């Protein structure tokens, strides 16, 4: 029986940048054992020598000619911004120190 502790879930939530309440952490950790047992079935088969498939199509890199095509105007690009300033996205501080 697999399991994932409350602290394991809290660590993963941190990596995924999702703040979680205590009750969410406890609920997820209680469900995870069952889910992990089910998905761990992929390890039951002998997979030695089997190639991995990341994508259903045998596509090579797809490139197009390097020409300028119409794209969003700055106004359109900013139309959904939670906050903006001087035609730019205004974001909270990212480097940890005050301005």
């Amino acid at each position, binding site marked *: 029986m697999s399991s994932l502790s409350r602290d394991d879930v809290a660590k993963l939530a941190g990596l995924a940048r999702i703040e979680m309440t205590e009750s969410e952490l406890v609920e997820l950790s209680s469900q995870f054992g069952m889910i992990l047992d089910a998905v761990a*079935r992929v*390890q039951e088969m002998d997979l030695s020598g089997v190639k991995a498939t990341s994508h259903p199509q045998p596509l090579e890199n797809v490139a197009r000619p390097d020409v300028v095509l119409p794209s969003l105007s700055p106004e359109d690009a900013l139309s959904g911004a939670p906050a903006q300033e001087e035609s730019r996205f205004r974001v909270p501080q990212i480097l940890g120190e005050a301005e």
Partner: protein
Amino acid sequence: MITSTAAQMADALAKGETTSVQLTQAHLDRIAEVDVQVKAFLHVDSEGALAQAADVDARRAKGEKLSAIAGVPLALKDVLAQKGVPTTAGSKILQGWRPPYDSTVVTKLKDAGVVIMGKTNMDEFAMGSSTENSGYGPTFNPWDLTRTPGGSSGGSSAAVSSFEAPLAIGSDTGGSIRQPAALTGIVGVRPTYGAVSRYGLIAYSSSLDQAGPFGRTVLDTALLHEVIAGHDAKDATSINAPVPAVVAAAKSGNVKGMKIGVIKQLQGEGYQKGVQTRFDESLQLLASLGAEIVEVDCPSFEYALAAYYLIAPSECSSNLARFDAMRYGLRTGDVEGASAEAVMSATRDAGFGREVKRRIILGTYALSSGYYDAYYGSAQKIRTLIIQDYAKAFVQADVLVSPTAPTTAYKIGEKVDDPMAMYLGDVATIPVNLAGICGMSLPAGLADEDKLPVGFQIMAPAMQDQRLYQAGAALESALLSKWGAPLLSQAPALKGAK
């Protein structure tokens, strides 16, 4: 008028017996009447739809050459971006967002004069099989309003089965078009991966996602398929090849000499009795029409569900990183001194629902160093084996078949606290997605024990989508003669229905 097929509506429009404005208004009236109960729509764009309809009418009056379904109204799954129209993917994190551009599917619909009436409800980011994971509440199955219409495209399937729209668009990552079609007694097709552009389709699991059509008949579904399919330079995974002749196939519907393979692993134990009975009967009907029935063995399908629930969450944990509260969508906790990371974490907590969080965490785990090979790596290898199983099976048969879902529609709330029980409902649809091939679900009748619709699934190799329509049309026509009327005529009348 609203109970006609899309093909009949298109015909009436072409003959001038009705106008797109009248037709659209009739459907908007129906939505106003019954959607209080069905709750298929998250947003109804009456004004935009009527303007689009008037434009098609004007073009027709001028004698312009129009597409086969120009002027016919449609319901659009909220996972597809439509310029200026609220698009949420069923998530609170995108509440109020109006995309500054059209997805390619929307562009193609607009170019074809198909009238987009509104955006339909869905499991948040298409993660779910019942539409109960929507951030805006569930959708209700018109056959029984206490039951789910399936998911994740449950809003679209409910809209079409309740005559709110003759056509709808859904998306299918693990069965999200075929399963809701099965649970509501309509036709749904997941086209070959890469056949319909994913540009502007809000990504859940990029190697599995595919948009596709819903209709009440095989022909209607083919007419819509033809409109939305085709190569698109804006999607690097889009297949650069002609669209298979799906409409011609739907019109021919001949299965004489066609080899139909029954997948041993996708029937019997675990399938509801009434589902299995209707499936077996449909198979006999196909045999009576001259098809040859063979049994095929796909041993690795037993591991498909496990592989899917590693691959899809892994891809989603990466795809959904874009919801970072910086450029669009919700932002919470942006107080003086809060870091971008704190704002992002608070926003994702407030904006994502339980299932989305569950899958992101599972994907983060499956991709983390130390576990990657055992989980994601193994799942990718299972994917290879599934592709090989299909390849072998398609040597023996032209199309493969199974029940679409192991059960009929279940009660709302029944599985919501048991994620594994919910996931098991996708057991028959998932292999198609992992292999990138195409699949259809069409109604096979009602299960004896609960009088609810049963879906019959047909699968075909990549870019052989016409075979789905060929076999589907044959079965549909045989079933229709047997029933004497379309299956939906047996659905209970919704309150307020005329």
